[in-house]
């Protein structure tokens, strides 16, 4: 295993262990996701809009906002006892550091999404059936992209006075393309549309991931080095 990847895994494992110990973000994100679903469930008029039509946007709003809770905390835990200085002092390439934080955040978002999806089916009574593998694939692609940007912005705003408030403000505009593509794809998957209708959106997600994962890895060192 390449050294940089081994170091990244060590950082990600540490982040997950910290989260499992405190469970602060995970529980908050899950409660938040359940609340959003409850609110949307009771706010909609089932005779006016079919659950199937509303489902994709609600699903992605829930995924995005609950994942943001984890992104917010990713670097705030490093402020404790100036632990982030310890990471910066170590002979770890900044790219590996970014990758480690990214993998940790990705695992967090995956857990939140895995818990949210059954809740969503329960509340909205949407039959995923044949569409489930496709939706899981779309979720993986979209989450990989916005978590990459979120990890970078989380590092960027952590030194500001209102980091928790700043992150959504700077991150949300960058989340629009993957969320739009993911909602469109989910809608088509649920409607059983052919793959040819989805290629454009899939391409957008793929390009977004490649562009932003590369860009964020390159920019991260300049962000963390004062």
């Amino acid at each position: 295993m390449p050294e940089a990847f081994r170091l990244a895994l060590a950082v990600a494992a540490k982040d997950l262990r910290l989260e499992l110990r405190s469970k602060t973000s995970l529980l908050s994100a899950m409660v938040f996701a359940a609340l959003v679903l409850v609110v949307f469930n009771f706010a909609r008029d089932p005779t006016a809009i079919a659950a199937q039509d509303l489902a994709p946007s609600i699903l992605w709003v829930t995924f995005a906002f609950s994942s943001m809770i984890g992104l917010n905390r990713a670097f705030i835990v490093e402020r404790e006892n100036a632990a982030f200085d310890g990471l910066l002092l170590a002979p770890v390439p900044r790219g590996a550091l970014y990758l480690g934080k990214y993998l940790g955040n990705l695992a967090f978002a995956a857990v939140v999404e895995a818990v949210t999806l059954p809740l969503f089916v329960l509340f909205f009574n949407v039959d995923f059936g044949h569409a489930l593998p496709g939706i899981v694939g779309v979720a993986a692609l979209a989450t990989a992209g916005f978590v990459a940007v979120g990890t970078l912005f989380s590092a960027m705003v952590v030194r500001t006075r209102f980091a928790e408030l700043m992150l959504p403000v700077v991150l949300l505009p960058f989340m629009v393309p993957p969320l739009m593509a993911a909602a469109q794809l989910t809608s088509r998957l649920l409607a059983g549309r052919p793959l040819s209708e989805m290629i454009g959106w899939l391409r957008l997600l793929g390009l977004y991931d490649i562009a932003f994962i590369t860009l964020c890895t390159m920019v991260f060192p300049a962000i963390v080095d004062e």
Partner: protein
Amino acid sequence: MLPAEGALLEAIKIERSFGARRVLRGVDLSLAPGQVLAVLGSNGAGKTTLLRVLAGLMRPSAGEVRVRGRPLGRDDLEARRAIGFLSHQSLLYDDLSLIENLTFAARLYGLASPDQVARRCLEEAGLGARLADRPRSLSRGLQQRAAIARAVLHEPAILLLDEPFTGLDAVASDHLRGLLRAEAMRGRALVVVTHLFAEVWDLATRVGVLAGGRWVLDASRPDDAVAFAAHYLELLRA
């Protein structure tokens, strides 16, 4: 101080500003193996800033830091491996136990058998019975011991210590002095920032006094501590 041949650590004309405020003004430093520099000065003299610049945690506004003759840059992992840093804060995660904290640090430094190294360092710091404890459950002094164990875990060639004796009891202070002396004997270079020079007097081979971001004294440690105390106060008042 002029850069010297064979120096482990060099700082050349270091400047550091925060906005319009100049904290360091052309600080030079050169440390050979085995040398222990005690950095003294009043509050706000730039001691901690100097230490952070030397550790590579803060970029100088001008000037350069060199480790074994190589510029300390973001990508120079070997230079970073050579540095051990003890700050005001412990650099430990409160939700991980001491052994988990140090094992993680050992992994970052690519040490073989990280768990064993972490255990040995904590035992040497007198924390053998507290391996599973979390930092927040320890007293200030015990946290400081753990932080010291973390700083020396990878056997760095250069040790940068910011007020290392803070919170330590007499026994722990004596133990730390012994440890630092042993590190110097093994050819490590030490920079110890402190307010209380009596704590490092026996240890130091050189004394530097910072005032207003520049050296007002940089010399071999004098023999007479009492005479130096009077001179030191004059320097601070000047």
